[in-house]
């Protein structure tokens, strides 16, 4: 275990996902379910930024972060939808799911240089590289504010 005080001891578990061609992590603590779906699935309405997903007979917001992150937004024919256990719930669309990783410590980030502080909670080492752990609730809040500022909401 690295005892360097500049790293934060924080053990947890994340799913590694691909959004817009980049890898990110999502803390499993916020995840209620993950579904693999065809892009044409009638439960999905995919839009720039916010679409919707019919989850247990209720429509919930479906967040398309690729647009917000200014990343390529094309999607494969089969995608994954992650539903949160928040109240109210929302869903996030990701183009690939690479698996689940357990981590024992994380790397702090220079939050002062991000347009949206704490959008990424930490960086986590993965396969010799690092991915950023997205704070989904903050991302939802920031994307809502961004879309409202654009006049789309």
């Amino acid at each position, binding site marked *: 275990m690295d005892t*360097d005080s500049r790293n934060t001891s924080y053990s947890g578990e994340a799913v590694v996902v691909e959004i817009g061609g980049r890898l990110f992590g999502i803390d499993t603590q916020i995840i209620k379910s993950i579904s693999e779906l065809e892009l044409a699935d009638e439960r999905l309405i995919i839009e720039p930024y916010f679409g919707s997903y019919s989850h247990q007979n209720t429509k919930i917001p479906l967040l398309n972060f690729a647009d917000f992150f200014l990343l390529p937004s094309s999607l494969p024919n089969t995608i994954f939808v992650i539903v949160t256990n928040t109240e109210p719930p929302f869903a996030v669309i990701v183009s690939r799911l690479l698996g689940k990783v357990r981590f024992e410590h994380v790397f702090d980030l220079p939050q002062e240089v991000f347009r949206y502080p704490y959008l990424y909670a930490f960086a986590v080492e993965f396969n010799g590289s690092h991915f950023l752990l997205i704070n989904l609730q903050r991302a939802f809040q920031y994307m809502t504010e961004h879309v409202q500022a654009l006049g789309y909401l």
Partner: protein
Amino acid sequence: MKQFFVVRIGRFFFGISTEYVRRALPVIPHVDVPLLKEHFGGIVLYNKRFIAKLFLDSVLDIGLYRQASSVTTDSTVIFEVSGVTFCATVNEVLPVMPVEENQLFAVDDTHGAQEPVFPKKEYLIGYFEHRQKRVYILDMPRIFQKNFIASPPN
């Protein structure tokens, strides 16, 4: 006598007071991060923590200078200003230069007047001559303040 760490970015030479420079290293690859503030180009793992990579050429508005050859003299320079560590890639690192106070001159309106590209004067606190070249002294506290503290979301 003042000590300046001297770097080259493109065709311009810059002096940085040594109090703000921690190390110069071979180029460290950065991790791309979506939604960074303007002038930042990613984050870099240094000394077991992530620090920001600032595009100094962009801050200074002197354009991007990329080497055509795969063999470059590029370096990553680690800075520390107000307790915050960050880095920038420069095209060349030169030896630290001691400069007498009376060899430091002000940058006035005539500097760069004839040049299509010239570093933003708001970030220059003076210059000195070295081998018939002007070495412009960077105002690191101002660069830090404007980009890390005052920079609004864009």
